[in-house]
């Protein structure tokens, strides 16, 4: 059931209670969790936070921590699972789901008592009707009749027609229901970011601060960076946040009211879409950003020459471009955005490729960060492949980074993010050089060979997502096949050598980029069922799954025939 007023329906209910918070492993969830923690600390609410990576862990965490807890909050997890059915809670337990995954399981939507959805009801315009999915069943009567038929053969003749009618109606109703459910669950998309919803809750209670605005910004940017929401939705959300940013940051410019330099100051600006360029050299940054690298085709010799030409035409000395950005000449640094925009049309770049409205934060004299850098650093910590650290350790370190004061750990995280991005680009280059992206008819597919360097980076879902997208864009930019832009991509990466498992992800084609609807969730499930492959659909993102490497070929054959 949807909650109309977040404050009355949700916050007032948990005000003097103990709560359990289950958080998924992505940056948006982390930001929402931090905002919620802040609110809890203001009002002294006791809480337990448990990070969960998948559906199995969700169940385990619930069972372990649910004693004495009457209110459970799910952040970015649990929407696609029928929570009441799976977790079997007691009557008095209330679930609050704040998840950006869509579609939401119909049982969660229509359960008026135990499940409350913290989502924007306006986004749900394709919900099926309650009556077409649930009805009071007479099915017990039918089966009862059948078993008694031997004794009541006389009366049975009269009821026969009615019974047949009823059974036929029921069968039609069931078929209709299956069809509606299939259509509803077919595409998986993403709704408004969880952190934005939590921020609006804080705002309605007048407890929002500049720090919370920044967390909401990071959450929304995370959705865009991992290609979960289309550009239009991101820009809408960014505009909504811009008004909040303006409200909190308008002071500090007039003489009487100068605020301390240590306060957080957020600025809304058009930001260059270069990955981590402030912490890297300009040249490296261009080669590692999805849009620019693919437009210039930097892995070919010709592409490299064009890139050099572009830099030369802008008047950037090559030696400076290859140095760290912060040590470039200050005039060049300030004018870089303008220069790129002036010269970009000649090289086939559009404004949409190069800039995007975004936010950057400044506190103290030293620290200036833009939102996308922050997201990449956070994700790098969250998906740290260090063997000594457990998943929970990574989660806690990532939460620490969101706390502004830990500048040293932030710098380390940025270095990690650089390594991840470099691994992604090297892998894409390998794919293209060895022509490993193969067309299988209805889709493209590629596999990362086991034993490749840095393959461990791709055993994590968010990194794999960025790799898949980069591969698809790069392949489309070099491919002579006109149809390449309309084909989706399926990518497989080795997950665990000893157990022989692979992590598989499917992403929609570039042509449908305005909506980013992903149909691979259902397709994977059906293919797995039809071939009896040993798969695990554990992730909250339905288009990512694990499977045994041996079953790979038959699974793919099934997938091809399914999508043909």
């Amino acid at each position, binding site marked *: 059931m949807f909650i109309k007023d977040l404050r009355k329906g949700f916050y007032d209910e948990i005000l003097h209670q103990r709560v359990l918070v289950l958080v998924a492993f992505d940056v948006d969830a982390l930001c929402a969790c931090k905002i919620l923690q802040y609110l809890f600390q*203001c009002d002294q609410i006791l809480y337990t936070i448990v990070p969960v990576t998948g559906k199995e862990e969700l169940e385990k965490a619930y069972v372990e921590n649910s004693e004495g807890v009457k209110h459970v909050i799910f952040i970015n997890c649990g929407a696609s699972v029928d929570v009441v059915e799976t977790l079997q809670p007691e009557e008095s337990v209330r679930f609050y789901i704040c998840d950006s995954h869509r579609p939401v399981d119909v049982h969660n939507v229509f359960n008026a008592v135990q499940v409350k959805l913290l989502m924007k009801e306006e986004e749900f315009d394709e919900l099926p009707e309650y009556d077409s999915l649930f009805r009071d069943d007479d099915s017990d009567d039918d089966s009862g009749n059948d078993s008694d038929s031997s004794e009541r053969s006389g009366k049975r003749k009269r009821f026969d027609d009615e019974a047949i009618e009823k059974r036929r109606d029921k069968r039609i109703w069931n078929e209709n229901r299956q069809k509606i459910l299939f259509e509803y669950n077919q595409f998986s998309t993403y709704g408004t970011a969880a952190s934005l919803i939590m921020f609006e809750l804080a705002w309605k209670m007048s407890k929002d601060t500049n720090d919370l605005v920044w967390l909401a910004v990071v959450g929304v940017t995370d959705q865009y960076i991992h290609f979960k929401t289309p550009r239009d939705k991101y820009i809408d959300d960014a505009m909504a946040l811009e008004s909040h940013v303006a409200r909190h940051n308008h002071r500090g410019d007039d003489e009487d009211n100068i605020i301390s330099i240590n306060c957080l100051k957020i600025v809304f600006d058009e930001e260059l879409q270069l990955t981590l360029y402030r912490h890297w050299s300009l040249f490296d940054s261009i080669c590692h950003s999805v849009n620019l690298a693919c437009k210039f085709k930097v892995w070919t010799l010709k592409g490299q020459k064009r890139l050099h030409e572009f830099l030369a035409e802008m008047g950037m000395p090559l030696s400076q471009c290859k140095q760290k950005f912060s040590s470039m000449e200050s005039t060049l640094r300030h004018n870089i955005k303008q220069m790129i925009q002036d010269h970009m049309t000649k090289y086939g770049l559009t404004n949409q490729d190069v800039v995007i409205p975004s936010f950057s934060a400044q506190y103290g004299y030293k620290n200036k960060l833009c939102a996308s850098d922050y997201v990449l650093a956070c994700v790098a910590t969250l998906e740290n492949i260090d063997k000594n650290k457990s998943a929970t350790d990574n989660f806690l370190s990532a939460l620490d980074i969101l706390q502004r004061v830990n500048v040293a750990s932030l710098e380390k995280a940025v270095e990690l993010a650089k390594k991840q991005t470099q691994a992604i680009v090297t892998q894409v280059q390998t794919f293209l050089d060895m022509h490993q992206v193969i067309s299988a008819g209805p889709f493209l597919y590629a596999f990362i060979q086991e034993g490749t360097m840095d393959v461990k980076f791709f055993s994590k879902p968010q990194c794999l997502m960025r790799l898949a997208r980069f591969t698809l864009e790069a392949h489309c930019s070099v491919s002579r096949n006109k149809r390449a832009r309309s084909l989706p991509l399926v990518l497989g990466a080795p997950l665990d050598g000893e157990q022989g498992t692979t992590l598989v992800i499917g992403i929609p084609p570039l042509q449908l980029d305005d909506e980013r609807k992903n149909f691979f969730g259902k397709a994977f499930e059906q293919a797995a069922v039809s071939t009896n492959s040993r798969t695990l659909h554990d992730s909250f993102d339905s288009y990512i799954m694990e499977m045994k490497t041996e079953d790979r070929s038959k699974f793919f054959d099934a997938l091809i025939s399914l999508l043909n």
Partner: protein
Amino acid sequence: MDPAEVEFLAEKEEISVVPNFTQDKIYLIGGDVGPFNAGLPVKVPLWMAINLKQGQKCRIIPPDWMDTERLQDKKQEETDSKFFTEMPSPHFMEITQLLLKCATDDIPHADEIRTLVKDIWDLRIAKLRSSIDTFLKSDATHAKLNYLTLMELNTARPFLTKALDQMHLLRSNLSGRIQSTQE
């Protein structure tokens, strides 16, 4: 007394806040506080002000003396005078620290105020040190200082009292031996 204790005592000072909630008078052992009306300033003890601020329930109004001009004048006065001058509040250092830590966004020119208060503190501590120096060299038995705050006193107290004890011990040993050699 260590600095934490002094800070604890300083938190009893009254300060004005503007709450964003409404509540009746609160009856506490130390005195009554309130009633609270949203949007109207009310005087509360510093500890309560900080607690409310951290819970996003109020806005803190800096005390009158926490203003760049007044502090500049005070600093000038302190530089010109040979003795200690009267401070705007007997706990000026602690209050400044606490407010600048939790309510930085409510105080205009926070950085300048921090620098000015630190300067005043440094001047007074320097005067204290030279005054102790003079006291020891002149072999006096007592000294009187006006307008010294509790925090400044506590920076000197532990070391000074122990040092004077040791000096007395050494002196009495020395005079004892001189007497015995004279006899």
